[in-house]
């Protein structure tokens, strides 16, 4: 052995051991990727800068409900709050659009841009597993942003009441809505946003494209409602994925709000439910298709 070799040996010969413990395989790999992505969606474990957008938007999503609950607690007036379970999520359209536009690229663009994908795909998971883990994390993240204010509304209604026990009983019928309405919103818009983001390694393009799609669809729906009349104006509302999700939510609670966008169309609710399902499935399929093909 030469002097050089023994010198480097002295430096490096400290650690390597063989590993005989368990190897958890594909399922563990997918779970790991899901949790890591969910944390990334809120900037957890990242720099402070990465937390600004997700936490800021989450605060925007919760603030109105929290303020309304606080006012209701201080000034107990019947029916004073402008917010309820039926209109709150649709009111978050802009916040949710921005959240998906900012965080879907956060989850997927970097892996393509920095070619981390070739490492992921050379681990114990399949390409579609990667797509589904990322999508699952995105849906969960949007679900959390929607679920938090619904919980605040629920707690506000219960805690502001004179008789908390009775209020809990009254509010119990709203629990399915509190739990499932956020999911009905989260699934289609996350799938749509992630499918768009998966298409480019450039984060700014992805964000721009998602915002464009959400704004353009809302604008087109609005213009068509104004510029046309009758059935066409009604059907035009279906262009907006948030209207579709809201209709699906109405389907869950059993009836439309006549003053809301869905109610004004007068269309049967199953159409909105079907469209929501289609958007979610199509977005998922597009993301899976993309990751089956993307070079790694």
């Amino acid at each position, binding site marked *: 052995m030469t002097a*050089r*070799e023994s010198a*480097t*040996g002295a*430096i*490096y010969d*400290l*650690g*390597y*051991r*063989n*590993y005989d*413990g*368990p*190897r*958890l*395989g*594909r399922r*563990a*790999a997918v779970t*790991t*990727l899901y949790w*890591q992505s969910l944390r990334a969606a809120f900037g957890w*474990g*990242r*720099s402070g800068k*990465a937390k600004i957008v997700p936490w800021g938007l989450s605060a925007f999503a919760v603030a109105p409900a929290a303020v309304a609950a606080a006012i209701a607690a201080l000034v107990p007036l019947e029916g004073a709050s402008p917010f309820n379970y039926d209109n709150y999520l649709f009111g978050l359209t802009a916040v949710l659009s921005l959240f998906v536009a900012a965080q879907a690229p956060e989850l997927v663009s*970097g*892996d393509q841009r*920095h*070619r*981390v994908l*070739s*490492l*992921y*795909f*050379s*681990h*114990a*998971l*399949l390409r579609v597993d990667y797509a589904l883990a990322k999508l699952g994390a995105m849906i969960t993240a949007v679900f959390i942003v929607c679920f938090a204010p619904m919980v605040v509304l629920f707690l506000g209604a219960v805690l502001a009441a004179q008789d908390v026990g009775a209020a809990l009983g009254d509010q119990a019928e709203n629990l399915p809505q509190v739990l499932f309405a956020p999911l009905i919103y989260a699934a289609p818009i996350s799938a749509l946003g992630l499918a768009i983001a998966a298409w480019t390694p450039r984060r700014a393009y992805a964000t721009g494209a998602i915002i464009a799609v959400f704004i353009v669809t809302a604008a087109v729906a609005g213009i068509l409602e104004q510029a046309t009349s009758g059935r066409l104006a009604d059907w035009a509302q279906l262009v907006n994925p948030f209207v579709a999700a809201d209709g699906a939510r109405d389907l869950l609670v059993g009836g439309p709000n006549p003053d809301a966008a869905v109610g004004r169309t007068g269309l049967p609710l199953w159409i909105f439910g079907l469209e929501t399902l289609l958007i979610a499935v199509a977005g998922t399929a597009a993301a899976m298709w993309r990751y089956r093909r993307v070079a*790694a």
Partner: protein
Amino acid sequence: MPLIETRALTKRYGEHVLALDGLTFEVEPGIIGLVGANGAGKSTFLKILLGLLDPTSGSALVMGLDVTRQGPEIRQFVGYLPEHDCLPPDVSATEFVSHMGRMSGLPAAAARERTAEVLRHVGLYEERYRPIGGYSTGMKQRVKLAQALVHDPKLLLLDEPTNGLDPAGRDEMLDLVKRTGTEFGIATVVASHLLGEIERVCSFLLAIDNGKLLRAAPIASFTERTGMLGVEVDDGADALAGRLTAAGIEARVEGRSVLVDCPDERPYDVVRDAIDELGLGLVRLEHRRNRLEDLFRDQPEVAQP
């Protein structure tokens, strides 16, 4: 069971590009050099072993598992160091390597523990807590090696591991590869276009050129003595060769040298006398060994008659 076994493995890109052309061979565990010019098909071959690419036809088995059908099972026991950059800039080496350990199926505690060990093994210390974006090329190569080793693979696939490194960095990386392969018994395939590197670390050589297998054999068989005597003279190599041929000894000119066929000891005296009589200056007298370069230099002549 062979480490890697391929049968008529072929990969086409589109109509015209034939990246791998009917590779058939078996290799046993060890440090295997995969050598070929840029574009010879090395990376394509590694990616097929990983299941990142599907072969157009033919088959490949890694540790007895089929690459097209048993990808996840294979990849659980394989570490891969790609040729290109593959590291996210915004996380630290510790976080990234430990994440990759968990992606390979290690439980969280084991992943953390092995990350610390493996980063020490590749020579990353305090800097491992800083974001990877600020690392030098040498440090990034070490992180790439660490993430390939974190789950204690049975097979390590290294694609140009010394890419972009300065000479000192190359030496260190090659030492690391050799130590990892020999001392820890991890079968390793090192793809490189630099024969010198392959010669230093590998025990077995797979040579491919234009997607075809040139040779698969232990490295020693490439560099054995040829029974040729190389005689380098000042000038007058032609005259010397003529004189030797006249004396009934096979000799041919190669640059300033004359290659003399030496089946026995008789040519030594003839060479000495001929140089003396011609009054030439003798620069070098050596037994010729095969060199790895010959493998590639001779190939085009064979291919184009």
